[in-house]
């Protein structure tokens, strides 16, 4: 899941280029993953992402974002609209067969209704937090270091002063707990990279 908590939004608004660079690098893959689910042509899917970044850079002073969550919502909403425009333009222009047209229409409907408010992500996070809260302490620490601090097993082992094997065992246990907790939310479990 795209996490922009490390981004200093105030600096970004002031046009601080290194901050923008950091944002670009943390968000590129997530945004491309999104557009490529809807746009089949890879160069076009990439281009919509580049346009989204360009749009952010040109409007940086005026964007109405105060938190990393609203910045994330801004990026996805902008990209979503670009995808929608692209699909409606392409679908009327090119010679697609009826199957492709139907698929595009289903995607356009989906994108048109998609409300990328904070709620979507908050919900995902709330579910994850719920799963974490039932974990035993060591298990939880290992899980958080791995998923949120992006530490490697070896780094975690060094920090907690335990063996790499113990880290692995705790991770397996944590994932199992998350899966049980989220069993009704199969896609959400995959969403946070657990399946």
């Amino acid at each position, binding site marked *: 899941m795209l996490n922009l908590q490390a981004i200093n939004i105030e600096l970004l608004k002031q046009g601080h280029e290194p901050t923008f660079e950091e944002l670009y690098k943390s968000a590129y893959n997530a945004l491309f993953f999104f557009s490529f689910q809807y746009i089949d042509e890879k160069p076009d899917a990439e281009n919509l992402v580049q346009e989204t970044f360009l749009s952010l850079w040109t409007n940086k002073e005026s964007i109405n974002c105060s938190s990393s969550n609203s910045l994330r919502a801004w990026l996805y909403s902008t990209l979503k609209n670009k995808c929608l425009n692209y699909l409606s333009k392409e679908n009327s222009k090119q010679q697609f067969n009826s199957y492709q047209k139907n698929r595009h229409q289903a995607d356009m409907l*989906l994108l048109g209704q998609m409300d990328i408010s904070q709620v979507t992500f908050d919900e995902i996070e709330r579910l994850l937090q719920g799963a974490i809260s039932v974990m035993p302490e060591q298990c939880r620490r290992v899980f958080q270091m791995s998923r949120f601090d992006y530490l490697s097993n070896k780094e975690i082992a060094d920090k907690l002063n335990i063996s790499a094997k113990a880290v692995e065992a705790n991770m397996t246990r944590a994932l199992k707990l998350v899966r049980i907790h989220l069993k009704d939310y199969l896609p959400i479990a995959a969403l946070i990279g657990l399946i």
Partner: protein
Amino acid sequence: MDKTTIWQLVTNQFPTKKHHKLMKDVLQSPQLLAQYQELKKLWSLSAAENTLSEPEVNIKYQQFKKNYQSINVKNNWLGSFSKYAAMVVIMLSVAYGLWVNHTEKPTSMTVTYFESGTGSNNSIKLADGSQIWLNSNSSINIQEQSNKHIEIQLVGEALFDIIHNEKRQFTVNTEDLKIRDLGTRFTVKSYPNDAQITATLVEGEIEVSNHKIHETLSPGEKITYTKTNGKYVIAAVDTTYVGSWKKDKFEFIDKTLKDIAKDLENYYGVNIQFENTQLGNERFTGVIQKRTSIEKVMDIISYSAGIQYSMKETKNSIEIMIK
């Protein structure tokens, strides 16, 4: 259809045929479609896979910055980035009336410039339906004069699919060679750092010339011109894979590793060295998807060609050493 099947559909886990069949069912049932859309929404927001490695994202950012700056400099740019990634299009439409014959429309000249950065290839369609694909790190300047004369300046590599028009002249100028088209499909490769310029004809007829040469190519022929001594050879080639770069594939047909390295350098913006220069002359044949990361491409080549390589990322570039 159960939720798991829809989930697998969303995450692309079926072969194409089965995927199509299931998708048709989904599209026909409002309930299934609603479930499909819910799951697809979550999946698309999940960022579950990283398409590009960290160094590749760095390269993308450098491109973004470069394009952004070039847009800033040329303050007469149109809208946003134009149709394709890493491509800048500037169109100047100058109408200069040569009102000699008042019944004729004024002669107008259009100049179109576009370029593609590292790791991308772009295409442009001319008014008459002719199409030009540009490979990575290439640029093209098109001067159109009232459809009577099209003159192109090319740096890099491009594939031309030109609709024949007897009343119009179509010329591609490269560093040393002039290629005149007589209604055809052909590629021209002329990168400044390459020692040679090549042109391969797939269909139709082209004329290749400079102050010394004047040759006409038939389909399936390729001319290779060496810049330093002005010598050239014309040979028959297999044109099956000509222009396969525009399809997001690398074509390596009996190519030396040295030449392959050049193609990879152009596309990925990496730097490739040979520890043992002899290795550069080894030949290799294969087609690789461009969606693949540079690491994967190197893995495939090193596995197939039986070579070793190491990769090192410095601040602005990726260095690859082939052993």
